[in-house]
């Protein structure tokens, strides 16, 4: 036993049974041959990397900062303060009867989740050039981990919403549970946009420069600081094509007002989000094949 090959010893301890070998074939990239199920199974195989990288993103972000995790709260909270000062002290903005601070925070919460996700995910590939050109792993993991790290911030910041609701004595109803599927759809949409932007950013760095502007405009096209009811009725059918409208507005409705969601706008958002997710993923995997050459 003493002279046993150390590698064999490791093998024997880790592989109780020898797994069958899998034959993989690498061919030139082609949209018709793109095999989504196979790609998803590969992503599933790398689920530990998804987890580890997400945890490390969170750790690294807060490791050497004095305020630590409070930063996750500070961003939506300070935005809420500013908007509350402007729109309830300087100007009167309708808030569907709720206190404006609560009204704004309930929308800023999902909005901040989305905007942080997209802003970070967009540069997710180009900020890891070293890795992308040296090692193979499903590249979509990089932008997706930024979305999941933002989801963590979202959960932390949600505690403040609960605090505000207690402060303003707004009791939640069972309808608040609709927030869960809404967050799932929002995550899908954020991943879809993240995949789309990050893959394009590899070829055109313009995207990275444009994202802050896009997000700024996008926020005003979403009912964050004003209610959906403030949008003129004739524009509304066009307006709700923005998936964030159905998501942000329904999040606020179900959590704050205890109302049932508007299934038309929510359904539309869900449909657009998941359709876009399939398209973005296909596009991303197509771009992935030659990503290392042009990054």
């Amino acid at each position: 036993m003493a002279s046993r090959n150390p590698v064999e010893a490791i093998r024997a301890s880790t592989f109780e049974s020898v797994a069958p070998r899998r034959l993989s074939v690498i061919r030139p990239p082609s949209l018709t041959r793109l095999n989504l199920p196979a790609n998803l199974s590969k992503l599933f195989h790398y689920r530990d990397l998804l987890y580890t990288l997400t945890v490390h993103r969170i750790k690294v972000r807060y490791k050497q900062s004095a305020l630590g995790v409070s930063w996750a709260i500070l961003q939506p909270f300070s935005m809420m303060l500013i908007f509350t000062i402007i729109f309830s002290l300087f100007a009167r903005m309708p808030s569907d009867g709720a206190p404006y601070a609560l009204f704004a925070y309930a929308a800023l919460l999902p909005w901040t989740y989305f905007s942080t996700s997209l802003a970070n995910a967009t540069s997710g590939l180009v900020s890891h050039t070293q890795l992308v050109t040296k090692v193979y792993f499903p590249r979509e993991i990089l932008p997706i981990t930024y979305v999941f790290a933002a989801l963590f911030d979202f959960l932390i910041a949600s505690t403040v919403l609960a605090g505000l609701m207690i402060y303003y004595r707004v009791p939640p109803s069972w309808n608040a549970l609709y927030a869960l599927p809404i967050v799932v759809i929002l995550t899908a949409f954020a991943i879809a946009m993240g995949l789309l932007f990050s893959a394009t950013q590899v070829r055109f760095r313009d995207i990275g420069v444009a994202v802050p502007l896009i997000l700024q405009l996008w926020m005003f096209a979403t009912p964050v600081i004003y209610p959906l009811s403030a949008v003129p009725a004739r524009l509304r059918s066009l307006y709700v094509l923005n998936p964030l409208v159905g998501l942000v507005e329904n999040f606020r409705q179900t959590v704050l007002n205890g109302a049932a969601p508007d299934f038309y706008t929510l359904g539309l958002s869900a449909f657009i989000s998941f359709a876009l997710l399939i398209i973005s993923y296909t596009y991303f995997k197509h771009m992935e094949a030659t990503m290392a050459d042009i990054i």
Partner: protein
Amino acid sequence: MFDLKFDGVSKKYKIREEDHADASPHKVVRKLQSLWRRSKEFWALKDVSFEVERGESLGIIGPNGAGKSTVLKLLSNITSPTTGEIKINGSLSALIEVGSGFHPELTGRENIYLNGSILGMRRREIAKKLESIVEFAEIKPFLDLPVKRYSSGMYVRLGFSIAAHLDPDILLLDEVLAVGDLAFQAKCLRRIEDLRRSGTTIVFISHDLGAVQRLCKRALLMRQGEIVASGSSFDVVNQYQHTAADFSPPDLHGLLITKAAEITGLQLFDLNGKPTEAYDTGQPLQVRLEYFAHERIEDGVFEVLFFSGSRELISQFTTEVSGDPIDIEPGAGVIEFGCAEIGLLPGIYYVDATIKHRAAPEGSHIDWQYQRALLRIDPGRLVYGKFYMPHQWRHQRESLASHLAAEPAVSNVVS
């Protein structure tokens, strides 16, 4: 049964040119033009086909830009081929530039998990191997320090150690052994050797020809995107060494060569008188120089010069300072240069030989033979450093008896 198969694989890279004859003077317009203008094409690989059998170890050698790294990138799925098909039977891991997945802020332990998962390991698997990884990397006391506090040596050792614990069916190696100190390199080589013996298929891409010969049975020689030779690694390495040499003589201009005598042969021998080209540092070397003199040359001087692959003079030996005066009579003769221990560092050298008059003016020779022989030095008695010294070790032990005799007992230990 094959583990790897390249079937008519080509890889084209596009190089976009912004500067063109009809380019617009405006920067933005020029940029837009370059987007639709046909870009320059560069074929990094041209119709490459080969197979690697299960358990085989294949070396790929060739000059820079031959397409070796492209083969590796295609195999590890970092990029896709332009045409052709690659079949991979089993799990494959590449050991390329270890440590590129480290995050400086995270601790060694966290980075082991991060890097391990990047390389495709499951967390459970990493947890099982953690102890062995740390032990191999020799970083146990620093495991919970951020890696930004690590020395570069620790960094590299940890990177290799993680990758070395992958246990893939197929392992790709790319110049990884050029990292860390030589003692750690030797450890890495042993590890790879263990993997090879336990049945891992290995593809080894390297400039270290000695390592390719040691590690691989078979080798491919690539040049400009094509396979130009394939066969036993010994033959292919030899062929590469001979074609790699630039046999066109350097600038003869300004050199006066009388050819009153000519060097007709130059051969290298080992201790047993066997002609060899490969030696280890610290081994003996014999150089045999044959000449033919057309006339009598009084007080002639012979020189042997060692040049590096990039034609840098490494060392020059001459009978002018280290030999007896020689009067060369007309006709054939032989001069022998002997050295008990080669002091050259591992690498490839070219040997020149000259004849000249004693105290001849600079640039005036009777004959100068360029790159008449090739010499490959592998690591031998040298472990690490910039030069080799002939040496012995002596172990001196003072025993009770020797104290009494007031004379130390000496036991000679030669490494």
